[in-house]
């Protein structure tokens, strides 16, 4: 049985298929040990579903991101070429804010006393100028061990051309029992600071991530065995469970591979959301979307130019909390505001929301333990979340408690409702800004896009945001509270390999033989790794691409490797920069191959068609606050809605994993896949 998990700050979402139907389960996250929630969910799923054969798990995780954001990774040492121990701290020597006299720089992940130089040096062609002596290697290993590091990053100058010296020290360090991240393996590309930074992030996450993954594998195996014992098929030899992890680039990969290169999972959960959103947008026939994934702790937004699958834009210039991470990732922007974000007045009397979050523990006030007002409490006070509670009533909300504590914290606000409205407004402003960063600031007009809202709280805030940004349409997918998990469930197994080759090209033909050779090398590695992932040669799809530039430039354009790749490069350059110089020699810097193994794709079943009236799904009438006024608001049950139903705001649509708010002036229409398309009434 294939089960997808998305571990968020507040909830762990699970999605799986039973009898061709998509099933959803939400379990409160267990931040102390994120694998525990997965174990609880597994137990529950297995109890309800009986025999499920070998387990096939795919997980999206925020373990890496959180460790990096909160600076709670492992104790790392760094070994560099002697004389360059400070490259990590100097960075690119520029400041992040131009017009700020109070220049601040984040401290590096590895402090000075754990950075060690080894006397070794290559020239720019990869020839050894100075090889490290065995004695010096031994001395460096001793120093690293003495420093108390549990994980080590190694990054030498020009190791992307000649990894020999890195390999030697790496193997010596491994023998000493340390977990080693070597830059020629993590990111064999030029520019020492970005490579060092990325390798250090990897080393920083290795201890945290291997612990987490080992835990998941252990409990998956345990559940799998237990399950088999009780079934008739206990003779099946294959008792192991398969665990795969979502990568930031949009493909999944075995837990073992992920444990070695956790830097590739930094945007794991959000990447699942993008795949899910892209899928539902495709179903709804929408091309340009802005994804808005509001969870309990944070909100992720991304802009997708075209809904075509397999052509998601990745960037290798991601910066996570001021740290460059140069492995390819989907282009996602994150802000620290979500349903669990805590509201407070700052010293100057301004109301602030986030980035502190009540998380799952203690949670918002209305969950029964928290004492600080969170966005969810504000929504409850305003009547935007039904009192009956979340998760189909499995999770009741205590409105009296929320009112009591919020009254205590409301400060200068005239009433609890005004305070609550203020909290919602400020949270919306934070998220509006995030969407501006990826749209307006990059020259995209939000009016041309559809907002795809998901995550536990996305559909509650989407229409307000759309109004603020002039976005004409909001799409709330069928299962907004578990869309990331759905995306993960649908993800293909993918492995990206690249190699820096720096080949000068004058015509397409002269380099083809050399390039073919490079690709066949990549292919050998790729097939080997895909076999380990369970895919034989003929079931693996390969996409080949080249990073090209004019000789002498510093930035490359990626073009597919085909017969006319040189011409393709010139036209790509022309399109991007407005000119091409067909007489200038160009250069292939990197060859890239993506190996994909297709996984079975569960489909969302179609709904029965019906007329516009949604009366049969009406649950109740209540009062909710909009712009300071109480208005009668109808609440509908999402699972009873049929294709063609229309709902005019103000209204709430309740479902297991989320609530959709349709404000006054908006109308929702249910499409045949159960998506709700919201538009403002003219």
């Amino acid at each position, binding site marked *: 049985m294939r089960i997808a998990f998305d571990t968020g700050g507040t909830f762990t979402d699970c999605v799986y298929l039973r009898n061709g139907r998509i099933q959803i389960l939400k379990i409160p996250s267990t931040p102390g040990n994120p694998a525990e929630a997965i174990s609880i969910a597994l137990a529950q799923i297995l109890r309800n579903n009986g025999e499920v054969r070998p387990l096939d798990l795919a997980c999206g995780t925020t373990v890496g991101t959180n460790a990096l954001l*909160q*600076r*709670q*990774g492992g104790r790392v040492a760094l070994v560099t070429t002697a*004389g*360059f*121990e*400070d*490259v990590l*701290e*100097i*960075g*690119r*020597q*520029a*400041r992040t*804010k*131009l*017009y700020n*006299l*109070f*220049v*601040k*720089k*984040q*401290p*590096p*992940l*590895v*402090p*000075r*006393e754990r950075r060690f130089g080894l006397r070794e040096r290559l*020239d*720019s062609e990869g020839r050894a100028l100075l090889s490290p002596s065995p004695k010096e290697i031994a001395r460096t290993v001793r120093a690293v061990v003495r420093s108390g590091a549990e994980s080590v990053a190694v990054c030498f*100058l*020009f190791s*992307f051309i000649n990894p020999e010296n890195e390999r030697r020290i790496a193997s010596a360090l491994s023998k000493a029992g340390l977990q080693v991240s070597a830059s020629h393996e993590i990111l064999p590309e*030029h*520019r*020492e*600071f970005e490579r060092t930074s990325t390798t250090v992030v990897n080393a920083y996450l290795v201890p945290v991530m291997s612990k987490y993954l080992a835990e998941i594998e252990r409990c998956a195996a345990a559940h799998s065995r237990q399950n088999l014992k009780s079934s008739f098929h206990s003779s099946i030899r294959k008792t192991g469970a398969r665990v795969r992890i979502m990568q930031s680039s949009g493909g999944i990969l075995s837990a073992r591979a992920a444990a070695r290169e956790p830097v590739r999972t930094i945007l794991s959960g959000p990447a699942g959301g993008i795949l899910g959103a892209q899928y539902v947008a495709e179903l709804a026939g929408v091309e340009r979307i802005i994804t808005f994934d509001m969870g309990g702790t944070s909100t992720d937004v991304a802009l997708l130019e075209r809904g075509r699958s397999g052509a998601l834009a990745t960037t290798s210039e991601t910066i996570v909390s001021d740290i460059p991470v140069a492995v390819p990732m989907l282009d996602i922007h994150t802000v620290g505001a979500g349903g669990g974000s805590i509201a407070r007045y700052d010293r100057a009397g301004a109301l602030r929301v986030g980035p502190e979050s009540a998380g799952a523990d203690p949670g918002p006030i209305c969950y029964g333990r928290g004492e600080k007002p969170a966005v969810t409490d504000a929504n409850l006070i305003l009547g935007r979340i039904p009192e009956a509670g979340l998760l189909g009533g499995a999770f009741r909300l205590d409105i009296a408690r929320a009112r009591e504590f919020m009254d205590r914290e409301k400060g200068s606000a005239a009433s609890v409702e005004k305070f609550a409205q203020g909290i919602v407004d400020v949270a919306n402003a934070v998220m509006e800004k995030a969407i*501006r960063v990826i749209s*307006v*600031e*990059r*020259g995209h*007009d939000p009016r041309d896009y559809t907002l795809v809202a998901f995550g536990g709280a996305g559909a509650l805030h989407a229409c307000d945001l759309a109004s*603020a940004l002039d976005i004409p349409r909001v799409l709330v997918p069928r299962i907004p509270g578990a869309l990331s998990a759905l995306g993960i469930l649908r993800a293909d197994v993918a492995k990206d390999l690249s190699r820096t080759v720096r080949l000068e090209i004058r015509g397409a033909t002269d380099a083809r033989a050399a390039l073919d050779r490079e690709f066949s090398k990549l292919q050998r590695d790729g097939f080997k790794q895909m076999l380990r992932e369970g895919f034989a040669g003929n079931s693996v799809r390969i996409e080949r691409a080249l990073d090209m530039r*004019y000789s*002498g*430039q*510093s*930035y490359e354009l990626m073009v597919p490797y085909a017969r006319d790749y040189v011409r393709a490069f010139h036209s790509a*350059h022309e399109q*991007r*920069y*407005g*000119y091409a*110089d067909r007489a*200038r020699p160009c250069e292939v810097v990197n060859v890239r191959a993506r190996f994909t193994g297709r996984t079975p794709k569960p489909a969302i079943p179609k709904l029965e068609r019906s007329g516009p009236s949604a009366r049969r799904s009406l649950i109740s009438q209540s009062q909710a606050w909009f712009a300071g006024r109480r208005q009668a608001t109808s609440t509908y049950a999402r699972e009873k809605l049929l294709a063609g139903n229309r709902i005019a705001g103000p209204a709430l649509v309740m479902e297991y994993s989320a609530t959709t708010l349709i404000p006054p002036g908006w109308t929702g229409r249910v499409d045949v896949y159960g998506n709700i398309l919201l538009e403002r009434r003219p």
Partner: protein
Amino acid sequence: MRVDPVRLEIFKNLFHSVAEEMGAALRRSAFSPNIKERRDYSCAVFGAAGQVLAMGDHMPVHLGSMPMSVTAALNALQLDPGDVALLNDPYAGGTHLPDLTMVMPVYAPRNRRPLFYVANRAHHADIGGANAGSMGMSREIFQEGLRVPPVKIMERGRVARDVMSLILANVRTAREREGDLTAQIAACRIGERRLLELAAKYGQREVISYGRHLLDYSARMMAATLDAIPDGIYRAEDFLDNDGVTAERQRIAVTIRIHGKSAAVDFTGSAPLCSGSVNAVEAITWSAVFYVFRCLLDEQVPATSGLMRSIRVIAPEGTIVNARPPAAVAGGNVETSQRIVDTLLRALSRAIPARIPAASQGTMNNLSFGGSDARRSPAKPFTYYETIAGGTGGAPGSPGACATQSHMTNTLNTPVEVLEHAYPVRVLRYALRAGSAGTGKFPGGDGIVRELEFLTDVQVGILSDRRELPPYGLSGGKPGITGKNELIVKGRARVLPSKCTFYAPAGAVIRIETPGGGGWGSAKSKKHFARGKSNKGPALEKRQGQGTPSSES
């Protein structure tokens, strides 16, 4: 027409993103490390009357002075659709000769007047003259390189080959220059394309009027900021070590008069024109004033010409802050500009002490070299230019940053792996300069030590300062440690002057140690040495020589 605050915000971002996008195109398609890696360029969008509507977050020293380039181009030339003007003459809209500026009008189809102008400026690694890299010692502008008054580098969409050939014949690295100039033209066209898209989408009238609203908006923001500074007369002076020719200190004097919502910034009393190249043209002085006052505003305020509406700059002609021809000016742009900022901040620290940090390194440590690369056959001429970061000043409430560019520059470093691949040079060391920061309640940041070995015979130019007079501390903080330049030939080191040009043989090593930032507040008790709170993750680290932790939060 009513101003819609949401629209205003959107247009602010739209214009800004046009400038940023021009910058990205320039960086990504340029050829010389100084542009593609170090990002020593700037892009901006101008209204039809030549006022800045938006500037990319690029180089402060360029940005304040770009309007003068546009004005100079418009005064000299009739710019038709598809034309691009090129200039670098410091005495006609430029700053110093290596900065080549392009200005392009943006015409909507069938319009007879441009709707906007776009411009970009890039620092080229060579523009001819006596010194490889065009940033060495000189006494008059004629020695500093090719001087280009506003000319058309592109006419009606076609590159003017004659102008291009004239330029390329006068520089050391023609092929690279041609590539960079092409990238600059392309960046102009990207800006043109994006602005025309905006005009088509929102309507010309709307786009133009929101451009005007942005100017008014920033003018109002500046007025409110000035209003919050106590009225009064604030004076300060600071000095450059020397002009590279004589040993004399070069004085910068300023008097800032704040009166209600306006300010007058008067440089009367500054040194007369000097014999070396640290003369600044007025555009640079203007840029420095613009930068300092822009820093007092919220970061969200757009950097438009409107900001300078209520600020008057008085820079007496024929002084080091308003040079006349034929004075040499290469160092005015990079060194004098930093000292003008130091002086302005020192004056403001008397008005608003809680908002002004101690002095940052106060120099750009300009290093240029060139020669013939014998690794290639036939040997290929090359020139290279870089600036090196230092410590920033401690500030009330937070320590300075180590190894960071400050004030008028924000260029990146060239990665070692790019530098050595492109030029016959080897980096031996690139490290923090421990113990160089000024101590204080909030200490400054440390400078950098950078050692380069030349693999071939080269001509080298250094323009640096703060080698004799250190970056000042404030409120009892100690000054930073001065910088140092050394040349090591066959194991023997000798100290070089702050500004010099010389030939070095293959195998020679140059070592540059950059100044640390000044400290802020007196360090009465030991515990005040802590440089901010440590995060949970990385432990505090020990600094050599001072025993103070150096991580920052």
